[in-house]
């Protein structure tokens, strides 16, 4: 059940905007928007099931060949998102990591450095709260929060719906911060140009081996919190080696969001991606 309007929603995911407490949109086949002027809202409950099956001894069995990718619907929608980005010269980056490795801090650090070159917008994914969106909102860039409820990842539909609620400028950089999770988000294409996985020195340097699917899918790996290296049992070179074993195309960056070390190289790479789109 929705905690804002009390309606029961088929899908758990909700869009929210910082500084607009009444605004929220439920994502699903029966989307409905709540605004201040909203008087009653529509729910599309889809089709009904009559709740009983007919079993008959005369039933005839038939085998139907489908050969359909299970993720087909998500992948098709991701391609639509990709087409939208292409038409509008937008570069979308999907930021992935376990919770607490510093995705939001990394965005807070890099976005102000990039704003002089092109517009930046952000989609924030979290199970609950608009805390991250509030932090990005404070930078003065457009941001929308996707609350996935019980969901453990963003999918192409959530991003598609979020895009419709945003006023993106042509030529923007769109940073999509996925739900903090090194497992599930690896499977779901959102339509992004590149996947950037963030890992920090307070985690284990064998993480790329423990969560190979994520590191295999990623294009760029950012090792964060390098300022803590003298105090933790973490070998940056071993971590890099492990990551390269899983994905030898992976681009590698080492940064400290705290001190600003290495940030220049990363923003340089992002500028290059936007320029070469």
């Amino acid at each position, binding site marked *: 059940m929705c905690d804002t309007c009390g309606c029961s929603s088929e899908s758990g995911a909700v869009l929210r905007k910082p500084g607009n407490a009444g605004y929220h949109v439920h994502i699903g086949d029966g989307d409905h928007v709540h605004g201040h002027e909203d008087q009653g809202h529509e729910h599309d409950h889809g089709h009904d099931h009559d709740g009983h099956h007919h079993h008959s001894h*005369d039933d005839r069995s*038939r*085998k139907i060949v*489908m050969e359909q990718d299970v993720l087909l619907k998500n992948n098709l929608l991701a391609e639509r998102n990709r087409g939208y980005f292409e038409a509008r010269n937008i570069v979308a980056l999907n930021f992935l990591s376990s919770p607490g490795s510093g995705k939001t801090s990394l965005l807070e650090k890099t976005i102000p450095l990039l704003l002089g070159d092109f517009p930046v917008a952000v989609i924030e994914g979290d199970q609950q709260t608009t805390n991250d969106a509030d932090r990005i909102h404070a930078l003065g860039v457009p941001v929308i929060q996707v609350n996935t409820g019980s969901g453990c990842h963003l999918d192409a539909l959530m991003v598609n719906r979020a895009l419709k609620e945003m006023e993106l400028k042509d030529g923007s950089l769109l940073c999509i911060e996925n739900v903090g999770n090194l497992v599930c988000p690896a499977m779901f294409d959102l339509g992004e140009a590149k996947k950037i996985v963030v890992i920090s020195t307070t985690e284990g340097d064998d993480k790329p081996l423990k969560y*190979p699917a994520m590191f295999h899918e990623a294009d760029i790996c950012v090792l964060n919190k390098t300022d803590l290296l003298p105090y933790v049992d973490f070998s940056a070179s071993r971590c890099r080696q492990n990551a390269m074993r899983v994905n030898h195309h992976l681009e590698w960056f080492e940064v400290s969001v705290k001190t600003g070390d290495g940030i220049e190289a990363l923003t340089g790479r992002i500028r290059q991606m936007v320029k070469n789109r």
Partner: protein
Amino acid sequence: MHEMSIALSIAEAVEKRAAAEGAARVSSIELVVGKLSGIEPESLRFCFSAASKGTVAEDAELLIEVREGTARCMECAKEFPVSFYFAECPGCGSLRVSILSGEEFLIQSMTIEEEGD
């Protein structure tokens, strides 16, 4: 728990096709799950029984074919089985390996029951 949203999309795809075929119910669904696809068959079975409740695919048997991963070495072209993304060529020890199969995740087919008359 991405298996739940996966199970829901399987139920949705099957229901849509079953309606188009005029099925009274779906008795079995054949899936191909590659070992590198990131899907846990047991978890998927568990979620599917919940996801298919009240649909024509309720009580359908999930027949899951688990497909092995294979890779080819990009240095010496040797092909070998893999169960993880970090694979070392058993021939030359190279890590430049490309995955040939094992990432599949397909609804292969389903068996429907039509009403007799």
